[in-house]
């Protein structure tokens, strides 16, 4: 097929081809190394310094004085996080809130994705667009919408008062309930999408076979559909849980003074207290907590990205 009378130019061509490949690979690699991975190393470094009133507000780790390089490492920030019950409570609050919201998203999102996957083909695209559309509008504005609904003089309270179900407005805004509702609402599309893409690929002949063999539909669901959609469920849960743990906007707008979430605490340490080292230590501990979910998600996603290719 390939007639190459002179082999020498071919190796040269292969060599340039390999070189070009390496350049193509190198561009995104270098970008992400510089703007994604290196910053994490810096968080780790800053978390080991102590705060000072200066610009930037932390002490250097490496100091060069009189020709001796000294490395000053300060574990104080981590000890401080452990000793102050506020931070422990904030981590626990974040994980709890994110967990409840993830379960709520799954309970609402799975049946939605199931119905979408069973819908006629020409409906699927419309339904998918309908589910995803809210997430393409503004996140901030969708959270804000609930402020008008849940407030003491908000729509829901006015409605319940009008119905006569309650005599005085219920306190719903600025509670943990509002935060969970807000996270569930904002992240629901991210639960539906991976479950839907998973269910839609499900081999329907398996279900037919099961029903031919006398399986009841509910048994078929538990024995076949649910186990086969495990990957989609896992991806959906990670897509909701991980960002929800670090959520700032929702607890800030819908939460109250007793809402302790780590994203909010980190924000306050950084912007209000200007304590960069403690904020960095908070971020490192949060990352450590999220490491297992992130690795799980990565394994799913990289399998998706390099399938049959």
């Amino acid at each position: 097929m390939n007639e190459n009378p002179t082999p020498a130019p071919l190796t040269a061509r292969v060599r340039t081809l390999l070189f070009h490949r390496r350049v193509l690979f190198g561009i995104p690699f270098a970008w992400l190394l510089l703007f994604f991975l290196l910053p994490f190393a810096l968080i780790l470094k800053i978390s080991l310094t102590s705060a000072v009133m200066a610009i930037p507000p932390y002490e250097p780790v490496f100091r060069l004085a009189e020709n001796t390089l000294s490395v000053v490492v300060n574990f104080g920030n981590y000890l401080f996080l452990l000793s102050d019950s506020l931070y422990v409570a904030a981590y626990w609050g974040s994980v709890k809130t994110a967990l409840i919201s993830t379960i709520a998203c799954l309970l609402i999102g799975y049946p939605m994705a199931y119905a979408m996957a069973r819908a006629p083909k020409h409906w699927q695209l419309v339904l998918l667009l309908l589910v995803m559309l809210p997430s393409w509008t503004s996140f901030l504005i969708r959270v804000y919408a609930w402020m008008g609904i849940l407030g003491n003089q908000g729509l829901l309270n006015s409605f319940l008062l009008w119905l006569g179900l309650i005599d005085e407005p219920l306190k719903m805004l600025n509670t943990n309930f509002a935060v969970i509702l807000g996270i569930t609402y904002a992240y629901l599309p991210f639960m539906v999408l991976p479950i839907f893409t998973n269910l839609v690929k499900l081999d329907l002949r398996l279900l037919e076979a099961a029903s031919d063999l006398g399986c009841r539909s509910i048994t078929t669901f538990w024995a076949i559909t649910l186990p086969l959609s495990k990957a989609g469920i896992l991806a959906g849960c990670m897509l909701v849980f991980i960002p929800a743990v670090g959520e700032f906007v929702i607890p800030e707008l819908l939460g109250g003074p007793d809402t302790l979430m780590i994203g909010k605490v980190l924000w306050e340490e950084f912007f209000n207290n200007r304590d960069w080292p403690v904020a960095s230590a908070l971020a490192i501990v949060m990352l450590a907590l999220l490491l297992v979910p992130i690795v799980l998600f990565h394994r799913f996603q990289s399998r998706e990205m390099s399938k049959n290719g």
Partner: protein
Amino acid sequence: MVNARGISFSKVMLVLGLLFLYLPMFVLIVYSFNASRLVSVWAGFSTHWYSALFQDQQILSAVWMSLKIAFYSASMAMCLGTLCAFVITRFKRMRGRTLLSGMITAPLVMPEVITGLSLLLLFVQLAELTGWPADRGMVTIWIAHTTFCSAYVAVVVSARLQEVDRSIEEAAMDLGCTPLKTFFVVTLPVIAPALVSGWLLAFTLSLDDLVIASFVSGPGSTTLPMVVFSSVRMGVSPKINALATLIILTVSLVAFIAWYVMRRNEKRRRSGRLS
């Protein structure tokens, strides 16, 4: 769940779920035309808040700033994300591939506060060591947005790249096309729809980002979400309702056009196959 035509639990949940997703947005739209400031009182139809919105110089300049950043970020993220998707799906044995795919998927789930803080620390250190960036603003937000938007583009594009018929690419190269030309003549037209949807996704993500931009911005570079956030922190504001309505309508319009184009292409493909 066995009866495909009748009413089933999952269908009811789908309708309820869609209502749950759309009712709050619908409320915002209705109340943007309310003459009263209060949510609980309906004081008649008015477009007063829209004219107030268009007279708010702070909001207008923030909109312009956000649009500019979103345009540049989406364009750069489209290039970088596509390149990433391409090398990950095609260069199976390249050294560092695992690390690259890890770095491109992690931003999808990384809490925004961590990404924002880490990038700010990077910019501060870079400024200390090299003098660049001298001050934070549009460029630093652009870099931050490009980085996390690339991840989304890479996911969208790699899904499409897997569907590309490799034999056509191989045929083009057998016929003497260089790999670069093959990419532009054969591969690119096939993955173009994914590039468009990736760009649009990156554009909306950048336009919407509050947390990361707050960390890496400087004085004088206030984006729209920052203005909206500082305003809604104080409580419900009818001007923001009007802004929300405009955003929702714009996104719906773009989604409708996208749906229409996709449906037309689908029909054309089907009729082409039949004839």
